[in-house]
């Protein structure tokens, strides 16, 4: 298998994880007290991992750039979390969740990892309920479910439109319990700037205290990177403003391979861009597609009249509307997977049917749902002769109970009432399936260095299904890493504390200081945001929803030139030994400028269309993605070799023993 050994256990798919857990090395409780683990990032993956490690008895140090672990961007996940509980009795099972996830990922993920994910998914719900996570319930007091894209069952558990918040607060509470016991030392407003490797193993990190600017050394027997995805590469995205790739990228620079960097999820239902001043984009949860119908006008002249403000969408008759998802994909309709829905919106807008000033928006309409719920409510309330206005009012109340916070958020941003007029939406960068390469243990190519949650590449292939990110983050943190990390640490029971006064720490700290000094001394003319916005434009235009070889080649050249300009002409005000948000941003953008180039190279290398990666050269006559399993049924894993253009490509062949590879169809 060479250097890319995925370490997938032998045996039948459904028995692999159990068998594996029975065979791995364990660390006895007394020895765990002598072992330290660093966890970088405190979202669902990092927070749940840290709490679980501490509970097992390890000494844990956590790091986050936010002022509290509770503010990690997992908090912003809205719609829900999948689990194969089959509480609805609609035919769900571990296998079906596994199958949907592999198919949804367009057959570019590992069978064994995904099956394990499905297998532990039910436990996540049990765990969270015992922690007091207030999931939505029905009137009988039991848990409620809803549907998400790309599946035909109802397996999504939710807490209004704030599921991520509630799950993160659950993990944060579990962390707090361990902080209280002294088993976790939480470092907030700290950023990891580099990974320290001693004798080939990850043994510590260098951090910057974001309040004082102090550079600190922290050692441990293992390091977990759980710092999320890199979608902020595009400048405009649904990510938090501070979300960045620094920890993952600097780990990559120290030897961890980066996998499938071009696999990015562009989410179909976001609030459209309003102007040049825009700093971020806001998601409208996929759960809205349970009830909202997506459409554009059938006629170009109607679309134009709407754009010019001469026609209102509510004036357009039913037969003049093109519900293009229902038309193209009758089986899944508005609940096709995200990549498919996004491309379909782009296709209509590129053809001139867009409905806002910029021509880049489609409608998400709740009118039918409001009337349907209203009639149902009238019936169950015994109102036999309710008129339309009354039914509408009742229906609006039902919709408000389901999605109230989302509707309020929309109204605040767009200044239009979505109960009365359809929402306008457009795709935006939302998630990155790519990330650090990990084996079945979630270990990177650096021994002792693990990656969890969105920071790794492992479970979603080329496209992630809705409500699966929360599932994966918590599965990695609560139920996978606590077992697999023990297998590595079993060798470290006699190692003793790792000293931080070694040559390796000296050298890594010097690299960090040199980099900061270089940024502070550039004294150029342009702010960090100037470069970040330029990078974002290149990425969106040439590496976004659809890509072609010519554009990708141009992107590679342009990003390299922009990076050179950045290091010569960036202007970072203030001082390095002080609170300095511009310096924080500069370090992050410096890394994005390297990752961007690798991203484009990865997209250029993959001569096929799969999931979120759509290459214009490879499509069917109907415009659907054309996969090439013969040549591209692999995970790309890039090895850092100094400059992005020198990165070396390794391939992990994907083996499908339990699923037959098919053309993904949602028709």
């Amino acid at each position, binding site marked *: 298998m060479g250097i890319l050994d995925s370490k997938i256990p032998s045996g039948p798919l459904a028995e692999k994880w159990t068998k594996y857990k029975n065979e791995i090395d364990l660390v006895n409780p007394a020895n765990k007290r002598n072992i330290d683990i660093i966890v970088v990032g405190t979202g669902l993956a990092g927070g749940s991992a840290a709490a679980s490690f501490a*509970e097992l008895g390890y000494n844990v140090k956590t790091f986050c750039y936010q002022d509290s672990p509770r503010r990690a961007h997992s*908090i*912003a996940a809205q719609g829900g979390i999948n689990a194969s509980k089959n509480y609805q009795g609609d035919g769900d099972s571990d296998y079906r969740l596994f199958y949907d996830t592999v198919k949804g990922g367009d057959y570019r993920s590992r069978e064994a990892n995904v099956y394990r994910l499905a297998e532990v998914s039910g436990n996540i*719900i049990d765990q969270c309920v015992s922690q007091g996570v*207030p999931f*939505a319930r029905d009137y009988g007091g039991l848990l409620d479910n809803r549907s998400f894209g790309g599946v035909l069952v109802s397996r999504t558990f939710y807490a209004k439109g704030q599921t991520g918040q509630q799950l993160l607060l659950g993990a944060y509470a579990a962390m707090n319990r361990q902080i*209280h016991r002294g088993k976790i030392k939480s470092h907030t407003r700290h950023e990891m700037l580099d990974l320290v490797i001693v004798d080939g193993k990850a043994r510590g990190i260098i951090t910057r205290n974001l309040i004082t600017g102090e550079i600190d050394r922290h050692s441990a027997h293992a390091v977990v990177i759980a710092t999320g995805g890199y979608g902020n590469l595009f400048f405009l995205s649904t990510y938090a403003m501070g979300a960045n790739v620094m920890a993952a990228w600097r780990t990559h620079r120290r030897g961890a391979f980066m996998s499938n960097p071009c696999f990015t999820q562009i989410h179909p239902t976001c609030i459209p861009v309003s102007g040049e001043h825009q700093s971020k984009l806001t998601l409208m949860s996929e759960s809205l597609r349970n009830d909202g119908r997506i459409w554009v006008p059938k006629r170009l002249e109607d679309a134009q009249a709407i754009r010019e403000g001469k026609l209102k969408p509510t004036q357009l008759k039913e037969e003049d509307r093109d519900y293009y998802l229902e038309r193209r994909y009758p089986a899944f309709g508005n609940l096709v997977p995200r990549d498919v829905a996004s491309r379909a919106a782009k296709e209509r807008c590129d053809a001139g049917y867009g409905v806002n000033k910029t021509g880049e928006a489609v409608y998400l309409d709740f009118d039918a749902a409001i009337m349907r719920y209203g009639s149902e409510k009238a019936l169950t309330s015994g109102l036999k002769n309710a008129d339309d206005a009354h039914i509408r009012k009742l229906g609006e109340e039902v919709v408000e109970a389901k999605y109230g916070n989302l509707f309020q958020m929309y109204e605040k941003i767009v200044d239009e009432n979505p109960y009365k007029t359809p929402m306008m939406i457009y795709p935006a960068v939302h998630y990155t399936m790519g990330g650090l390469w990990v084996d079945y243990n979630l270990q990177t190519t650096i021994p002792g260095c693990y990656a969890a949650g969105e920071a790794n590449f492992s479970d979603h292939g080329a496209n992630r299904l809705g409500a699966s990110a929360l599932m994966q983050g918590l599965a990695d943190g*609560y139920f996978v890493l606590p077992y697999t990390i023990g297998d590595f640490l079993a060798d470290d029971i006699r190692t003793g504390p790792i000293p931080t006064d070694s040559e390796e720490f000296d050298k890594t700290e010097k690299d960090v200081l040199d980099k900061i000094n270089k940024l502070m001394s550039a004294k150029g003319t342009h702010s960090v945001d100037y470069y970040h916005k330029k990078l974002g434009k290149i990425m969106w235009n040439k590496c976004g929803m659809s890509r072609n070889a010519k554009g990708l080649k141009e992107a590679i050249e342009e990003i390299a030139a922009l990076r050179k300009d950045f290091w010569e002409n960036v202007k970072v005000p203030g001082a390095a030994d002080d609170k300095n948000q511009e310096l924080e941003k500069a370090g992050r953008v410096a890394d994005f400028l390297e990752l961007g180039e690798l991203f484009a190279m990865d997209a250029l290398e993959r001569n096929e269309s799969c999931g979120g990666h759509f290459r214009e050269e490879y499509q069917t006559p109907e415009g659907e993605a054309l996969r090439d399993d013969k040549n591209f049924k692999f995970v790309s894993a890039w090895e850092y070799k100094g400059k992005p253009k020198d990165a070396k490509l390794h391939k992990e062949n994907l083996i499908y023993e339990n699923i037959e590879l098919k053309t993904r169809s949602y028709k």
Partner: protein
Amino acid sequence: MKIYLKIWRQKDASSKGKIVDYTMNGVEGDMSFLEMLDILNEDLISKGEVPIEFDHDCREGICGTCSLQINGRPHGPDRLITVCQLHMRSFKDGDTIVIEPFRAKAFPVIKDLIVDRNAFERIQQAGGFISVNTSGRTVDANSIPIRKENADKAFNAAACIGCGACVAACKNASAMLFTSAKVSQFALLPQGRIEASERVQNMVRQMDLEGFGNCTNTGACEIECPKGISLENIARMNREYLGASIKG
């Protein structure tokens, strides 16, 4: 729009701060409040000045990081939103806007508009959890049925984003709304009842140790809370606390 800004500048925790005047031209209604500050900062950087530091992250009203006192009100003039959701259409041409950090003894200023809210962390660490292991070896989720009404109330309390607006709004800088939201969430659920007495006592003790003021029922916290956390939670916490104290 032309907007006149009066912004609190403070070099660090130990320096004295002061209000500094800035004028912004060409402000558009569709800009968010923080985007207006981004533009001001770009301008300061181009002039070689040190930009204004303020806390922000998700910019969609859920992480609870942003914390500005705008014209004397936490998160500004609109109700039920955070600063990051506030748009400039809420202001008009020629307005003067005063921007300060959240003010409370327990929230010391770190720099400019950024405050230290670690006191909230310590309150949560004192008891804001249910002592259940994360092994996943618990009971099946549906074996704990919960009345929908209680589940909904627990959810409403749990929606707190920990921003600190309640403290900044209160004339006593009390943290009762924040603390009671967590106490309530767990008190309303059967899973949380088991340690309810210890929880409320530990969290209240820590809250008092941090130097937050007492509650005098003015209700300003509820009005300014971006998530509409109800005063009922304070009443529930008082009941829980009293009950726990009597039991000893």
